[in-house]
């Protein structure tokens, strides 16, 4: 690597430095926009005791779900985890801890973490189990709870295109949590469909500026569809 060139050529290099008991923030919504190859590399490495922050935990046998197979995840921070039988089993066994976090709060926790904001007030969750034990305060007569930001040792991201400097663009709703997650990792690794030369991406169209990105790797993606629904068509 030289200068701003962030491209690495092996998954081992992409995830170098990941150790037991670290926190990984992963982009994706369901199976849409997930860094498939980086997740596979974490599985291959066999790293244990991980805290994984991601909206969902994949499904059995795909996405983050594969990290459950060898019990690599100690704690999951997610908004919805219902798609996964192994997840359910490990949760009921007490082998896995889960911190359920409202989806918007989760996104904002990542955004705040990446932006150097340690905590924020939100009305979401006040008066519910989510608000229990948290500081609350009234602003203009309404109740809010204090939610703390999240940062990770690693952020693993799926982008559509990136240039060698790590400037990223996402495609359609595969964007989801990826831009916030990218800002919140001490080491941010982006797996992309296509690496392009510097200067090819229109600067005003870049979603994640390269300053947030440490490593870029060319991936290949299965892009499994979780719920295929079609209309009859005309």
């Amino acid at each position, binding site marked *: 690597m030289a200068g701003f060139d962030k491209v690495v050529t092996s998954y081992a290099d992409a995830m170098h430095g990941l150790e037991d008991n670290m926190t990984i923030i992963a982009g994706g*919504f*369901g*199976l*849409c*926009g997930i860094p498939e190859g980086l997740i596979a590399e974490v599985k291959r490495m066999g790293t244990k005791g991980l805290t994984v922050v991601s*909206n969902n935990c994949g499904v059995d046998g795909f996405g983050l779900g594969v990290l459950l197979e060898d019990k690599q995840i100690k704690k999951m921070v*997610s*908004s*919805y*985890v*219902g798609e996964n039988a192994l997840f*359910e089993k490990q*949760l*009921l066994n007490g082998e896995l801890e889960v911190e*359920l976090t*409202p*989806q*918007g*709060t*989760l*996104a*904002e926790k*990542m*955004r705040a973490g990446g932006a150097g904001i340690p905590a924020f007030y*939100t*009305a*979401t*969750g*006040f*008066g*519910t*189990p*989510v608000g229990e034990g948290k500081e609350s305060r009234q602003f203009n007569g309404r109740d809010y709870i204090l939610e703390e930001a999240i940062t990770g040792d690693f952020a693993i991201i799926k982008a*559509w295109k990136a240039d060698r400097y790590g400037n990223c663009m*996402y*495609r*359609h*709703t*595969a*964007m*989801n*949590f*990826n*831009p*916030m997650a990218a800002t919140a990792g001490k080491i941010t690794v982006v797996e992309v469909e296509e690496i392009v030369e510097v200067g090819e991406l229109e600067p005003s169209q870049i*979603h994640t500026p390269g300053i947030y990105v440490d490593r870029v790797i060319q991936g290949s993606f299965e*892009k*499994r*569809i*979780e*719920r*295929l*629904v*079609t*209309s*009859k*068509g*005309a």
Partner: protein
Amino acid sequence: MALSRDQIAMRVAQEFEDGNYVNLGIGIPTLAANYVPKHIEVMLQSENGLLGMGPYPTEDQVDADMINAGKETVTAAAGASIFDSAESFAMIRGGHVDFTVLGAFEVDVSGSIASWMIPGKLIKGMGGAMDLVAGAKNIIVTMTHADKHGNSKLLPACTLPLTGVNCITRIITDLAVLEVKDKAFHLRERAPGVDIKEIIEKTAGKLVIDGDIPEMTIN
């Protein structure tokens, strides 16, 4: 007769006004998209980051990168925009979404709602529901008036863990349309052919019946 799921959805769609931005939850709320009156335009928000959700794709249009909040394949309508999750919830928390429609296990006379967790059963998570009930300008709850054992879901106080407090203003059930205010359910409409007696029997929380209650128009 009690309304079918589709008939509840038809009644929900009558609430929308031209130019509304609407977020529809999974289940009956999603069906309401099929019954938006022809003469108005509404734009559907999907909290995974799509404003202007279109119909399901044809087989040729299927794209793994284009899904809705239920993780189903969808399309983007003309005039749609796509953005990240923080932006999506800024729209929701900032009060920019005009309507959110969602299901519930229980609603009480204070407008509190329980919709995500039954103790002793596996807890899957709240997804975006807590953000939606805390943020949208108008929230409509759709549900059956009573559970399958006949127990009322409209209560003096919710018994299940809450999704949000003091946030629900309107409930559309298989039997009635109700407004929640002043610590009571106010009956506004009844389903065609449904006797007010049945609504009274199946409403455990304080029910206010003011004057003649018209039948809903369903079509």
